[in-house]
């Protein structure tokens, strides 16, 4: 199945006038970001990827979870949870970002269900677009993903030239959307593999993923961490731009008469993240905090949830102010695991 670009934009306009919120890559103050569009004219089509991932639409940077009023010894409170989330369509999602969503679903539905995440997920349709180009920070293929992967998408579109997209239905939600708008789609096929071949080749395979977790399990005390990550300045940018970083804080804001309890993005790279009330800090040094980020993504999360907590979108590589590239760290680990160098706990402590 295929769809022409004008039909696709007509589809988005139709969904919009049907009451859906349409989110797409746009330029906002000259920064490429996902944002709600007023018209399809605002959609940017020539891009590698947005500065921020779409995580913020499911896990907002800050959101109230409770509101309270205090009157002397009495407290009244109400839970804040949007019951009727506006049905949303996100268009132009890259396969890496789409792939991050089912990975994140696991932590938010593990035992206790986080309704904030789940409700927004349920009311959102993801229309992803395959990548025909990448930059040197991208490394999805090294993680078993692909510039044409359907993971996490409802519909995947692959540009096949002449303002035409190949359409792949990747979920029931996607199927329904196509069925409901069948008149806009047309019969047709294209050779996706040959279209994606150049970008796949450019991406290549930058390290051996299967070597990373075993090395991490063995080398918690390796001098590698101090040598290669101590210069991290702990700004947290890597975690905020990341589609799979999901740590948050819970903080009260207000006055003596009332206020709100907020859920806010937080970052394991901050010194105060783990500090105890006594002043003792389990991760007192920046290299220890940086090791946590890598261990969490490539060792703990896979162990617990079966997925690597990284999709190779390359954002943290692009935006780190001191060029501490996770891609370089992973490549080095992959190389080290071949040479077999390690430092034992006994030597270090």
């Amino acid at each position: 199945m295929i769809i022409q670009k004008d039909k696709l934009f007509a589809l988005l306009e139709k969904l919009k006038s049907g009451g859906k919120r349409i989110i797409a890559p746009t330029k906002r103050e000259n920064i490429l970001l996902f944002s709600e569009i007023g018209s399809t004219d605002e959609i940017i089509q020539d891009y590698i990827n947005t500065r921020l991932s779409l995580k913020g639409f499911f896990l907002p940077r800050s959101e109230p979870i409770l509101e309270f009023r205090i009157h002397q010894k009495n407290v009244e409170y109400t839970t804040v949870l949007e019951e009727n989330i506006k049905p949303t369509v996100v268009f132009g999602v890259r396969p890496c970002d789409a792939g991050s969503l089912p990975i994140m679903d696991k932590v938010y539905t593990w035992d206790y269900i986080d309704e904030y995440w789940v409700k927004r997920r349920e009311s959102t349709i993801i229309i992803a677009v395959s990548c025909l180009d990448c930059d040197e920070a991208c490394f999805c293929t090294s993680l078993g993903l692909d510039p044409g992967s359907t993971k996490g998408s409802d519909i995947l579109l692959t540009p096949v030239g002449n303002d035409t997209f190949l359409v792949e239905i990747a979920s029931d939600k996607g199927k329904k959307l196509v069925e409901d708008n069948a008149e806009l789609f047309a019969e047709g096929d294209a050779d996706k593999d040959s279209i994606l071949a150049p970008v796949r080749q450019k991406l290549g395979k930058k390290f051996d993923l299967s070597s990373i977790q075993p090395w991490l399990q063995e080398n918690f005390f390796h001098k590698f961490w101090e040598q290669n990550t101590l210069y991290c300045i702990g700004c947290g940018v890597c975690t905020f731009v990341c589609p799979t970083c999901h740590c948050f804080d819970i903080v009260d804001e207000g006055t003596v008469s009332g206020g709100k309890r907020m859920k806010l993005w937080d970052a394991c790279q901050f010194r105060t993240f783990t500090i105890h009330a006594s002043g003792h800090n389990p991760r007192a040094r920046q290299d220890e905090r940086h090791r946590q980020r890598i261990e969490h993504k490539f060792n703990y999360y896979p162990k617990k949830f079966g997925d690597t907590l990284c999709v190779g979108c390359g954002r943290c590589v692009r935006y780190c102010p001191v060029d501490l590239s996770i891609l370089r760290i992973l490549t080095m680990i992959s190389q080290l695991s071949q040479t077999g160098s390690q430092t034992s706990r006994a030597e270090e402590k």
Partner: protein
Amino acid sequence: MTRTLYTPELCEIIEIRDETPDTRTFRLRFVDEEKQKNFTFTPGQFGLYSVFGEGESTFCIASPPTWKEYFECCFRVVGRVTKALRLLDVGSVIGFRGPYGIGFPLESWEGKNLLFIAGGIGLPPLRTVIWTILDPGYRQKYGEVTVVYGARSVSDLVYKPELKQWEERSDMKLIKTVDPGGETPDWDGKIGFVPTVLEEAKPSSNNTIALICGPPIMIKFTLPVLSSLGFELKNVYTTLENRMKCGLGKCGRCNVGDFYVCKEGPVITAERLKSLPPEY
């Protein structure tokens, strides 16, 4: 009313006791009577206690589940939330979420002797276990019960009236101590650090479970003493205090390696702890 996993329950402070100059006990009761009636937990589990407008703080549930009319927490005043808690009077309400985490496996210890070792404010998480097994319905299921409790000074001992009750009981043994210099003229306990006092007391490790809770330095020096007494690491339990926010395995704050303290802890065996990175 809409509720989510982060929505607290309201609890009223029905009694306040000062344990030490900077440590206070709250006796709490759910405002919703049904909630109080149905509230059950395992000793060792924790909750998130909140002062609205200041935030949430993690404390263990310090009372035993056998007390049905109310529950207790004991906190040291150290920061934003605990300072705000201290300003509250009887009749004030606070928020509570819980119980969370996994407590002590009391059932698997039936037929065994129990040795409790606590330092300072490490007693509350063990006190819930102690009062549980001292309950007439439980006491005969366990063998000898020994408590070694120490603090920096006499004024730093928590639950002083209960220490007296424990001393007077014939079905348990209490060894209390204060650090050298922390004694008062009328102090009738031992003078010495907990590990030293434990070494002198030589409790048998035979068929015995040890529970240890206190400042990291005390735990560090007590573990070798337990080993020399013949305790295997798998029979030594402690609780972790990593900083928490959600308590539900979502916020990513509390992990020690791949061990999520809020979900798989806070209770942990010394054996498991040894296998984890030293991030606690």
